[in-house]
């Protein structure tokens, strides 16, 4: 299985922990990820709302690059990239005028976007290409006793629910269960994290962050698991603002890939757990019969 890996800006910046955990996990599963050479900004949702045509051209360049480099499916871990690339594909299919604009722009630099390269999300690849059975086989340190609230955010299910249910997605639930974790049932799986409101209208954004943290904590979660760099940033980075507005609701937010790494027994230092503002510490309450190793918790606290 070969994929063109499209990191986008987040996975090289604020969401580095996502890349730093996802790449070793995928490698461990034998997935061949080839980073797209010379990729550019996806445009995110912001550019789409300013100038759709230019945003489409920008995103299409990445599709064209993937086409040029062997036409392997694009793996887009960031929710915004995933959405924008899919939306661009949708526009190219749906609106011939848009397609013509994009074709003109790409032609000018000697590129083309014709082969309809698939854009995939890591959850989709993990569940549907690799499969839960193969994942279970790699689990050496099951996350027994860890209570996780799976949090999908909006962009991977809305408006295009390509691989999961729009209202009640379950792919991450099933993945976490395969890792041995206890999945918290809660109704806020796809509720807004506040998006950029945390920066523009902080009271409103902080309220949304608080709602998610508070509800997950109330239901006994040890942590939130997310798939989106922006969700992780909002849920992890605004705890002091939440404290000022509502009181303390400390709860770490980790990427699902970090939990996978833990369950696979990958060394903590490879999983970027120390990059979070609210550190995530967890050791099995009753360790599995695997040979006990000295705890590596120190690096987590670093």
């Amino acid at each position, binding site marked *: 299985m070969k994929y063109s890996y499209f990191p986008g800006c987040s996975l090289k910046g604020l969401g580095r922990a996502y890349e730093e955990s996802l790449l070793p996990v995928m490698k461990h599963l034998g997935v061949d990820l080839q980073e797209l050479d010379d990729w550019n900004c996806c445009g995110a949702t912001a550019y789409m709302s300013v100038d759709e045509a230019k945003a489409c051209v920008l995103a299409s360049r990445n599709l064209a690059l993937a086409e040029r480099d062997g036409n392997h499916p694009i793996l887009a871990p960031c929710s915004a990239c995933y959405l924008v690339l899919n939306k661009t594909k949708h526009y190219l299919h749906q609106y011939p005028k848009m397609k013509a604009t994009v074709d003109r722009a790409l032609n000018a630099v000697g590129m083309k976007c014709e082969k309809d390269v698939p854009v995939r999300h890591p959850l989709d690849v993990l569940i549907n290409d690799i499969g839960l059975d193969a994942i279970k086989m790699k689990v050496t340190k099951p996350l027994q006793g860890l209570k996780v609230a799976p949090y999908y955010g909006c962009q991977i299910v809305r408006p295009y629910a390509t691989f999961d249910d729009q*209202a009640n997605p379950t792919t991450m639930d099933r993945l976490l269960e395969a890792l041995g974790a206890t999945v918290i049932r*809660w*109704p*806020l799986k796809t509720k807004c994290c506040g998006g950029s409101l945390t920066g523009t209208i902080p009271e409103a954004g902080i309220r949304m962050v608080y*709602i998610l943290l508070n*509800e997950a904590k109330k239901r006994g979660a040890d942590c939130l698991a997310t798939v989106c760099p922006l969700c992780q940033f909002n849920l992890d980075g605004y705890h002091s603002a939440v404290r000022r507005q509502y009181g303390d609701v400390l709860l770490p937010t980790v990427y699902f890939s970090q939990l996978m790494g833990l369950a696979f027994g990958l060394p903590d230092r490879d999983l970027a757990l120390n990059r979070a503002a609210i550190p995530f510490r967890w050791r099995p309450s009753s360790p599995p019969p695997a040979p006990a190793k000295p705890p590596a918790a120190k690096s987590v606290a670093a």
Partner: protein
Amino acid sequence: MNSNREELRIGFYVCHCGHNIAATVDCAEVARYVGTLPHVALSREYKYMCSDPGQELIQQDIREHKLNRVVVASCSPLLHEHTFRGATEAGGLNPFYFHMVNIREHNSWVHTDRKEATEKAKALAQAAIERVAHHKALEVKRVKIHADVLVVGGGIAGIHAAMTMANAGKKVYLVEREPTIGGHMAKFDKTFPTLDCAACILTPKMSEVGNHPNITLWTYSEVTKVDGYVGNYKVTVKHKPRYIVEDACVGCMECIDACVYKTPKFEDEFNEGLGKRKPVFIPFPQATPQVVIIDPETCLNLKTGKCKKTCVEACADRMAIDFTQQETFDEIEVGTMIVATGFKTFDAKRVPAYGYGVYPNVYTALEVERLVNASGPTGGEVITRDGRHPKSIGIIHCVGSRDKKTNVWCSRVCCMYSMKLALLLKEHTGAEIYNFYIDIRTPGKGYEEFYNKLLDEGVHFIRGRVGEVTDWAMTPEEEGKLTIRVEDTLAGYVRRIPVDMVVLATGLEPQQDAQDVRRLFNLSCGGEGWFLERHPKLAPVSTFTDGIFIAGGCQGPRDIPDTVAQAGAAAAECLALIDKGYVEQEPNTAFVLAEECSGCKSCIPLCPYTAIAFDESSKVAVINEALCKGCGTCVASCPSGSIVQNLFEDDEVFSEIKGVLAYD
């Protein structure tokens, strides 16, 4: 009259249809042009050809001008071919010497350029003039009608239709697949807007059906095969084993008391799974027939063969229990049929945002009907699945209706039944009731008044489609409750309303197996799966298959008054056919030229109406005129060209084509 040899005298009439045609087609020019064509003895324009004076004109001209062919250029033959054939016959000609040209639906309604439209009308008229010269005199055949009737489905529609016809002295077979008749209505507590007790008005009719000398009631039975044609249908009915000899069972229910399961243990279908029943049971106290049934899925003896069979002991001398029963079949002959197979309610799990199946206190409306019913699982006490007496209840309208993600249609009954349930729940619990609606639709007698009554009673109405039902609490008041999030589009803000119980007003859908039933009875379906009526306004209970009528919820969502009215209409249609005694058959059927048929049999499997048989003695194909619908499939497929169809003979069709092509 052998018109092929005598001189052709064609009368041509172009109709203005008020402005419908005349505004786009220059009718005077069409009449002038056709008048110049050979064999046209007379060419006229007229404002309304279908009017009495218009028809009179045709008759008069036939007599005075010795016409022997008639062509009318007007609307679609679907509307008035019959009218003008009648006028032609009244004038003394064979009605099939008439031909019709459609210059309205095919021309004036779809074009804007008057000049072009006029040219097109002239070309079409010329084609008809060429064609009609080759028409032959044909005979309309009559087929006798069998007086017995089959009604499929024993809900209120089937019950009413069967009773109407049985009271008129006809022999009626009523086939119902459930163990009892009664349908959905039997599950309701009260009916809107009068709040009649549903059982009180339905069960007397049910027992009348059960006892009527003219009705053969077959419950737990299904139609498996339909052959034949209007007036002469052969129908096979399968009787599923209920492991009870119906004639021997007196409904004493001693077997139920004696069952080895001392307490009811299995999900009770009649109570929507809210109650429990035993493997041997009677669906509800007034079930008709008053006969128990044994469910093979749960009966210990039928499942394992290891049971003390205490039920058989209890039945004793009546010997009504028979574990050896097998499926049996009956073949009956009927002349007409009414399909009244009903609807199913929308599966609320398809809208996950409302939490049905996740939160125990979310109910469907049909479940609540059972909950407030005195013979329901709680004896009419409204108590939630987690044992609470609700103090606040939210009723969400349009679940699975008016929604592009599920069903786009309005289910018509939900506004009214939601308001009925609001009133009943308020009476039973004193709770605050909130209705969440998109629009309130009350198009029925006394319905708007019922809505006003609810407003007076203090039931809350909040306009907005509910976003979600959630157990996520934001305030202490919401803790432990279900919160309904909705944009109140009248107040203009998003509200959160905590309630103890949520009722989902689920919409109506076609039955799961509607497509199978459609094929069985050769009906048509609309895109949504409802059975299609022949005409939405003027033939609302007829279907495209003669002699088969539809009534009730299988045709589309409707309430009880409309269903009963339709059932009556369908019964009247059957009675009209039966009392006439015969049906006339369109002569546009196909026939085999026996001397040219090679006996290759290739036409036989192609016929969609199984009208073609093979005559072993003469080794040729034979078409049963009574079954042939004139579709032309066999004509087109015959390798030797030895099948001919009346009104579509080669010279008729080719001359028509020639006429269009000759015009320039």
